């Protein structure tokens, strides 16, 4: 007060502090007010959404955590402890089955080993400093399935698969060694000679692995015993692995200048894309046996794998076509002016660029294949969904439906959300690099 009177007396020019520019809130309180309570409608929305969140989340937390039962012998005991809470005890008892299906308990290490080997083998593709990515990728595509089927199926094997198994073991060991080397901070030399230096240890390891597997007798596990999350992942992985080559061939066929090949590809792609997957699965199970010679004993899993692979192959073909169209015509022309023929142009010039652009799409179609895989439960394969449904038929856990469904929904959500975020990240990365 005194100051202001002084000011008027002395008539000193004192500018008032500038108002903040409109739309910028400097304190958190102002920001809060601007974003959540800027108008009556906005305030009402804030209150309404918060209330909605409360309405949705509080019963869920109450049911799933606060009132839940974690250990009980059967459902009746669960009920007597807490009548309106989740009975996770049943899940704990059945967890092994939901993950591994009816794979024998003593043999489940084989599944774990295959999974660990897969992670180790695929890891270099995501590590930017790792050399020879194409080699790793191709070996993952061609050798790993043989390695996995050797371990998962068990039983006796012919000499070819034994050799493949030995090679695969050697590769896993070498890749893991390289990764450890990288983690220790030593760089890897991406040159050809460094790869050649590895040939002796690789050969030695292969021979060693071959010798070891000779004494390793694996109990055969029939595919009817496969199940749970393991089976779901097997079907989805095989489908996407087969879908890529099928899709590439179909897409090339669709763009071909040869009318017969072009129209056959178009017919196949459009026919498969216009029917639902479930009818294709029914066809594979009910109709395919009619078309096979009588002597052939068909494995249900194999039938389903063929059906799912062809189905996702047709969808993949459209993805690949999109990728091929994104490559400028000049690339093809340049390759042809260098004297490359059709397959050279495609394999070395067009497809590598197109596939790089397609990686986010491939991840997306892997997600949808993974989700579609649950359909095999309708035709009676014991995938994760049928395993969860079967849990409610167990006498001890009779009618326990909600908990297993919530569990597998969560598993799928984590897998699919993670992958979709990864594919978004890849997309952004590709946009930056272009």
């Amino acid at each position: 007060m005194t100051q202001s009177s002084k000011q008027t007396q002395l008539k000193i020019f004192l500018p008032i502090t500038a108002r903040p520019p409109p739309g910028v809130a400097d304190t958190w309180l102002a920001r809060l007010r601007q974003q959540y309570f800027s108008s009556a409608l906005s305030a009402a929305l804030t209150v309404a959404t918060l209330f909605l969140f409360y309405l949705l989340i509080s019963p869920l937390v109450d049911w799933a955590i606060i009132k839940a039962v974690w250990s009980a012998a059967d459902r009746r005991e669960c009920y007597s402890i807490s009548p309106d809470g989740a009975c996770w005890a049943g899940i704990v008892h059945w967890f092994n089955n939901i993950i591994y299906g009816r794979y024998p308990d003593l043999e489940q290490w084989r599944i774990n080993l295959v999974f660990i080997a897969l992670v180790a083998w695929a890891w270099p593709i995501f590590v930017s400093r790792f050399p020879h990515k194409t080699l790793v990728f191709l070996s993952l595509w061609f050798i790993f399935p043989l390695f996995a089927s050797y371990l998962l199926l068990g039983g006796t094997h012919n000499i070819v698969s034994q050799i493949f198994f030995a090679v695969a073991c050697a590769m896993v060991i070498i890749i893991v060694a390289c990764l450890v080397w990288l983690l220790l901070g030593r760089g890897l030399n991406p040159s050809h000679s460094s790869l050649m230096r590895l040939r002796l240890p690789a050969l030695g390891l292969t021979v060693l692995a071959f010798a070891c597997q000779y004494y390793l007798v694996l109990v055969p596990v029939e595919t009817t015993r496969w199940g749970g999350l393991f089976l779901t992942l097997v079907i989805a992985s095989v489908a996407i692995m087969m879908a890529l080559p099928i899709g590439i061939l179909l897409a090339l066929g669709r763009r071909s200048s040869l009318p017969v090949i072009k129209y056959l590809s178009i017919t196949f792609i459009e026919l498969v894309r216009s029917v639902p997957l479930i009818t294709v699965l029914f066809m594979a199970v009910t109709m395919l046996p009619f078309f096979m010679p009588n002597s052939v004993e068909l494995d249900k899993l194999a039938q389903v794998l063929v059906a799912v692979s062809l189905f996702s192959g047709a969808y993949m073909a459209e993805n690949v076509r999109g990728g091929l169209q994104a490559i400028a015509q000049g690339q093809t022309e340049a390759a042809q002016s260098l004297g490359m023929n059709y397959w050279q142009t495609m394999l070395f010039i067009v497809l590598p660029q197109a596939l790089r652009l397609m990686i986010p799409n491939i991840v997306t179609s892997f997600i949808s294949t993974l989700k579609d895989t649950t359909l095999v439960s309708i035709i009676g394969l014991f995938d994760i969904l049928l395993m969860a449904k079967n849990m409610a038929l167990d006498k001890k856990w009779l009618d326990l439906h909600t908990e297993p469904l919530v569990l597998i929904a969560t598993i799928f959500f984590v897998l699919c959300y993670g992958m979709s975020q990864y594919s978004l990240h890849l997309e952004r990365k590709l946009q930056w690099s272009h």
Partner: protein
Amino acid sequence: MEITSSSQQKNTGWSWHNPTLRGWFYQSFTIITVLFLVYYLGSNMIENLRLMGLPFGFDFLTSTASFDIGWTIIDYRPDMNYWRVYLVGISNTLILSFLIIVFATVLGFLMGVVRLSKHPLVAILARAYIEIFRNIPLLIQIIFWFVVVFLELPKPKNSFTLGESVFLNNRGLYTPELLTNSPVLMVLLLTVAVWLLYWLLPSRLKPQQSQLKSPSEPEAKSQAVLATTGLKWLGYGLMLYVVFLIFSDDFSWQNPQRGRFNIEGGLFLPAAFCAALIAMTVYRSVTIAEMVRAGILSVDQGQKNAAQAIGFTRWQTLKLILIPQSARSIIPPLINAWLTIVKESSLAVAIGFPELVSLFMQTSLNQTGRAIEVVMMVMAFYVVTSLLISGLMNQLNKRMQIKER
């Protein structure tokens, strides 16, 4: 000169380097492979059918089905034949997918717009809705709605009710049914429905809009205005007439009644139908919401700024500027989503809703053993439906694209 002649010679002779010849070789090779495959599979099939004593043919369609179907749109009795079962399956599939398409499109547009909300909490809510329902497989969602929600509802004896006319219990939903004896009234009702649909269409699709665009011809303009007003009043009149009729004697509402063990009468929607409808509506609405969002974001930012500069409200900007322009990029994926819905409605087989796959590929196939014929018929339905929808919609799409210029 010498080079060209030699290369020409190289490319026209009977050599592997002649592209035309090579093309023919590839094509004939493909044809021979396909023919061989067809021959191989066909001979196996004939052999297998002979061994099983099953002739190939569609004569089984005329034999009596002799099983009952839980819920049908068209008339069905167990003494009808398999062709009727096929038609029942198709009608059930079509009614289910039609309802899903309508609800999912509306809900999808709503969520797509909400997702773009500036209010952070609302946007988070929409994002959570989208991410949760997108990343859980549809089949799990269907089974969840059926087993966890609908089968856990109370028994018919103590079902939820809305003024004793709508009942909800673990068998399904019972609503009043509109009964009429007069087909003329049904036609009138349909007319009003079509007119309402027309009224709801975005105005740029209507014919009078294009006539209004030419202000140089006031004659045409006034005629167009007259026509529109006339149409509007005709519609109101029709609507009034129908309302009058509904309360008259020709129409009657049949309310569901509490019976001794069950609810009787009225329109019955079984729990499996409701579960499939809700699950698929929610699942596809998420896809459509993402399309709508992408479509609206694809409109140039300047359009929005310009609209706001001349004083449009946010709602007006959305309705008059953003949505009409985004329609071009939304419609093609939307058609795809609709096609997917028709195909996906077959998943209702998992909870026992009697649609085409369940009735024909499961029950009829098991009873007759005619796997090849049955599978072919079911696939033919889906192929024809897909081709029809995509053909019609591509026409619509083309029209929209041309209007742009």
